[in-house]
């Protein structure tokens, strides 16, 4: 353990003896996300910096406090990228927060080698657990089946298992060419079309539907994108305008996301029927991610998501008292509880952010 990690370990030890709850927080760019937070802030940003980046290995290793801006600038200089297009939601966004929140952008449902969410590109991680032990999961190579794949389990864990101090990621080459096509299409026609295209060998890297307009982004070689664009038809958008618009979706600066109405994220099978909740809607990921702005009761939105074999998250704003995430089945909840007690036996880390009714170290039940 180096100095920065040792200092974090010491803070965890101190919290254990004082029985204080720790709230892991770096840049705070995703403070809005999850159930209400609790506890004394543990800022891990002293552990920062790119530890290793060898472009020909397609692997980047970084400490948790490294900003996404720094990582993406490094990758950009070698024409590579984080395939999952993580949203930053603020200049201070770090890679640790990116892993802990597990949020992916428009490229999540891409065809080809860029397919996948954050967890699909995690190769390894170092975690400081509730006993201040530094655990090393996975590694720095593409294929690794030694031990359980606990590094991927940290994605979206919101810090409940410990402090993610280092992560190694698979990175991919940027595509040579990107083109965005626009179509006029009603919701059910767009869903149908996206799923039909998804079954064909087309280089579709992102899609978005709102207000009767469907956008499709093609990414690949010049030859591949040109021939696919000719096949799909539609209207080709100006490159700079399109790039700015996809950025607006990724960072949620698009006008759809403006205002205070509660923002719900429904994750459903891409072929799920239209939500028919009568709300303003934006559809991404080929139909698999549906955003709505809605004051409907949480129970009604969750029931609809469940009916469509998916789940609903109150992503931003609204009344968080019913819990922002869909509840777990009893069997899953039991495993979660036992995992927590293995990794955090003293209940130091603010688990309420993921599981709203967890007791805290300083308020045991």
């Amino acid at each position, binding site marked *: 353990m180096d100095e920065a990690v040792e200092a974090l370990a010491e803070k965890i030890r101190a919290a254990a003896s004082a029985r204080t709850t720790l709230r892991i927080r770096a840049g705070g760019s995703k403070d809005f996300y999850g159930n209400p937070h609790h506890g004394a802030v543990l800022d891990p940003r002293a552990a920062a910096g790119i530890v290793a980046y060898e472009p020909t290995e397609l*692997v980047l290793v970084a400490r948790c406090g490294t900003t996404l801006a720094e990582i993406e600038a490094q990758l950009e200089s070698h024409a590579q990228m984080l395939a999952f297009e993580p949203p930053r939601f603020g200049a201070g966004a770090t890679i640790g927060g990116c892993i802990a929140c597990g949020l992916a952008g428009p490229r999540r449902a891409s065809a080809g*080698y860029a397919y996948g969410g954050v967890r699909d590109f995690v190769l390894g991680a170092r975690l400081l657990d509730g006993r201040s032990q530094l655990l090393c999961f996975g590694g720095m190579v593409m294929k690794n*089946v030694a031990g359980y794949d606990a590094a991927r389990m940290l994605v*979206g864990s919101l810090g409940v298992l410990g402090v993610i101090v280092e992560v190694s990621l698979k990175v991919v080459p940027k595509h040579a060419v990107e083109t965005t096509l626009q179509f006029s299409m009603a919701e059910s026609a767009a869903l149908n079309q996206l799923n039909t295209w998804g079954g064909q060998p087309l280089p579709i890297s992102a899609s978005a539907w709102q207000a009767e307009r469907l956008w499709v982004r093609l990414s690949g070689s010049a030859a*591949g994108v040109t021939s696919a664009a000719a096949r799909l038809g539609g209207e080709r958008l100006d490159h700079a305008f399109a790039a700015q618009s996809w950025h607006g979706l990724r960072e949620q600066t698009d006008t759809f996301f403006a205002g205070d109405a509660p923002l719900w994220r429904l994750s459903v099978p891409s072929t799920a029927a239209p939500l028919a909740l009568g709300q303003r809607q934006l559809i991404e990921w080929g139909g*698999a991610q549906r955003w709505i702005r809605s004051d409907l009761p949480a129970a009604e939105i969750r029931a609809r998501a469940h009916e469509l074999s998916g789940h609903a998250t109150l992503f931003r704003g609204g009344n968080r008292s019913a819990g922002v995430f869909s509840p777990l089945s009893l069997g899953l909840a039991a495993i*979660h509880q036992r995992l927590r007690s*293995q990794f955090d036996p003293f209940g130091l880390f603010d688990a309420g952010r993921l599981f709203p009714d967890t007791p805290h170290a300083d308020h045991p039940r």
Partner: protein
Amino acid sequence: MGDNDAAMPSTASQTIDRAQQHLVVAALRSVLSADCVLHREEDTRSYECDGLTLYRQVPMVVALPETESQIAQVLKVCHDRQIPVVPRGAGTGLAGSALPHAGGVLLSLAKLNRILGIDPQARTATVQPGVRNLAISEAAAAHRLYYAPDPSSQIACTIGGNVAENSGGVHCLKYGLTVHNVLRVRALTMAGDAIEFGGCALDAPGLDLLAVIVGSEGMLAVTTEVTVRLVPLPQLARCIMASFAQVSDACHAVAALIAAGIIPAGLEMLDQAASRLVEPFAHAGYDLDAAAVLLCESDGTPEEVGAEIDHMSAVLRESHATQVQVSGSESERLRFWAGRKNAFPAAGRAAPAYYCMDGTIPRRHLASMLLAIQDMEAKYRLKCPNVFHAGDGNLHPLILFDDSDADSVARAEAFGAEILEKTVQLGGTISGEHGIGVEKLDQMCTQFDRATLDAFCGIKRAFDPSGLLNPGKVVPTLHRCGEFGKRRGSVPAQFADLPRF
């Protein structure tokens, strides 16, 4: 600590407690038909090992349930009586993950072999665990779709086994491993309760336990149903066969391809010994004078493939390829691959036995790893041709030995162990795709420190508090790591301050 050396499998076969066997058979016959419970040695002998034949143990009882509810009842019977359960698919695994337990029930999932549904619009297939990997792609082909991970045992291996091992194949660099292509696993806990991991959406609430289930070698839950992602069949695939006068040139060519922004659909290397081994068998047309042969595949639309093949060929030539040949037809492409895909059977013909290793290292160390293996060939007086998934640094050295000669077996095992230790030294891992099972328990002590190994034990306990599901695999006990340290003549630094028993 969860240490339980009684549960530790070993190469020495243990005898079976007949009285206990009688009780378990009677209990299982109350939930399964008589022909689905095997206990006579002539019936159970064929389950004594998986693809790792160095380790054998006849199971006490073999259960062959036909439905999920029967599996649940078998598990309840075993859970109530504290009987260990070892799940098994086709038994093609190479690390002994399905090695039976002398006092346990071998739970074969082979009879659950139905494809429950293919949804071409959603591009998913939902199948029972005993469905063969290739059968999924065959069934999906009518919709111009396929299941991408293609381990070389794909004709025989099952999807349940693929989930247990997180199997790879030759197309992983572009299309991912099992973990990237499975959306949902329905499984039973050791207590017999059904749990759904993942789902048909792209994510699920809570921790990503699906990622832990995949690759857990049957130790966390028993898979009863799997939903996989299907991808469109490429319109065209073409393969380049390139020869190199130096292994280091071939290794640099791999790096140069990646640096040029290319992700080949397949990127495989054979060293000269491997080419010479397979050529008489497969007639693939490999250049037998080359120090290394690289197979580099492009797939996609004809336009994409045309441009990519040109780009790849240029990079390979700049990287000092002595010969670059592009497949002109599908039959020629398959011929190029025939040698690589037949490397294991060819090794089986060239020697009485072979031991297939499976480390992954950072690609930049490929050349030095090969040199180290050459030195080990002399040290252990055994031949070791090499085939690898060069794109992802996953090595498959094939140690040729004589299994009727105890000294040759011992040298092969020591050779294998030294290769694995070298992979860890080079920043790699002891298993890229075959798993740990019982084969690499000792090397787990080298790759992971005790705190991390204990965390794995904690994960095991969180899923299986009883510890009865496939005990003794993957995570070595503290005692075993101590013994391993002594055998190596030194205690690894990370264990130096631990109490020893």
